[in-house]
């Protein structure tokens, strides 16, 4: 029998938060270098998609079993 995957979304959400914090810290260190700032904007947009896909659900449910 195939084992049903279990997603530990709270840990995934923590990792996403870490990426977000790191990206913001990087921007704060950039000294207004546009090559850093604008790429961080793009990173944060991708991070937002991870939040939509994972972190938002984490507040509803901690562990999700695949149906």
């Amino acid at each position: 029998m195939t084992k049903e995957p279990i997603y530990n979304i709270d840990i995934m959400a923590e990792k996403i938060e870490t990426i977000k914090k790191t990206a913001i810290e990087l921007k704060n260190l950039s000294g207004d270098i546009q090559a850093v700032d604008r790429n961080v904007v793009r990173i944060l947009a991708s991070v937002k998609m991870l939040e939509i896909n994972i972190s938002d659900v984490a507040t509803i449910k901690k562990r999700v079993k695949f149906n």
Partner: protein
Amino acid sequence: MNINSYWNPILETLPRENLEKLQLKKFQRIFRWAYENSKYHHKLYNNVGIEPGDIKKFEDIRDVPKIEKSVMRVVQKKDPFPYGDMLCVPPDQVTEFHQTSGTTGQAVYQPDTWQDWEWWAESWAYVLYAQGYRAGQRVFFPFGYNVFIAFWAAHYGAEKLGCEVVPGGVLDTEARILKMKELGVEAFMATPTYVLAMADTAKNKLGLNLRKKLHVKRITVAGEPGGSIPATKKRMEDAWGAKVYDQIGATEIGAWSYECLYQSGLHVNEALFLVEIEDPTTGKLITEPGRKGVMVITALDRIAQPCIRFDSKDLVQWSPDKCDCGRTFRSIKGGVLGRIDDITKVKGVLLAPTAIEEVVRGIPDLSDEYEVLVTKKGETDDITLRVELIHSLNGSIEQIKAKLIQELRLKTNLGYNIEFHEYGTLPRYNNVKARRFKDLRHQEQ
């Protein structure tokens, strides 16, 4: 179905109870965002005495005022140019401009931040993954990349999946078909009208049998109702030898609905959108399947110009069928069944133009094109249906006419004047939304 059937198995199979909790949480967030960042929204909600803290349960959402496209047109005449004060971000954070097609009036402008644009691609990723698109597939985009949203976001959604994207931009129809043949593309996306126009060009100008000479396996259609009209879908699938999947979206909303591989209705992406269906007369919420109503929709994550309880004027109905794909997202049946402002009374009977298309496209002796003209003779409404005959008829004109009249009477409960035109003489609508229904009654008075 297994985990690989979903772009995001967590959201797409989330139990309904949790899905609704998620929608409420996200509605509260986007409502607060708009209230705090847009002068227009702040005033709109203050005028009815609603603040972010007032939305505590799902039912409270129903008290939030709706927004219509006509209002957006007025707001966009104000500062900041060209979006007006619905804008929720400083203008320098807008990285994308698009506009509606203007089919229903003055075009509405749509600003998006980079995050919004990423979100657009994300919403299309759900669509395409559900329809069998995967990394490594070569996908062709035969549309004019310009101010209209069209398949722009689908392009980036396909990229996000890892597809190899081929932009067919300014090539003409023949060149597009030949490029698709040369590259052996597996899939493409277009309006139903253009899918049929390409097939017509391949057959009649290039002498190309698409089923044998190309390798298209799937086509995603959007922008018109044809993908959910069985006779039109069959024509497209027969011509290309490919599966056709429908998708519904709008510039000011996003890519909110799609068919999956099982094709039992169109799923609403309820992780990204909240759809309410309202009774057109009473405005009461319709929750049961099979009752047509007007769709009011919220894009739960779009920030530059939020779409909160947008009164789409689209008529839809919940599907009674449970899809076997395992998604917990509800489905609508038959796609967009018409627009509340399109459904018109002719001779006292409510007429939806999609019903006429279903009849015309179901008769093999007729070409893909048709035109409907409603006029007034004295006090009486008069409907003329113009159709084109294909060159190789199976029946006589009289037989075709009799079949048309009978089928139209059955589907629409109305009588028509039938005009037969030579093949190729009715207007073609390549790359623009087709306008085949023309109500001329007011022009004549």
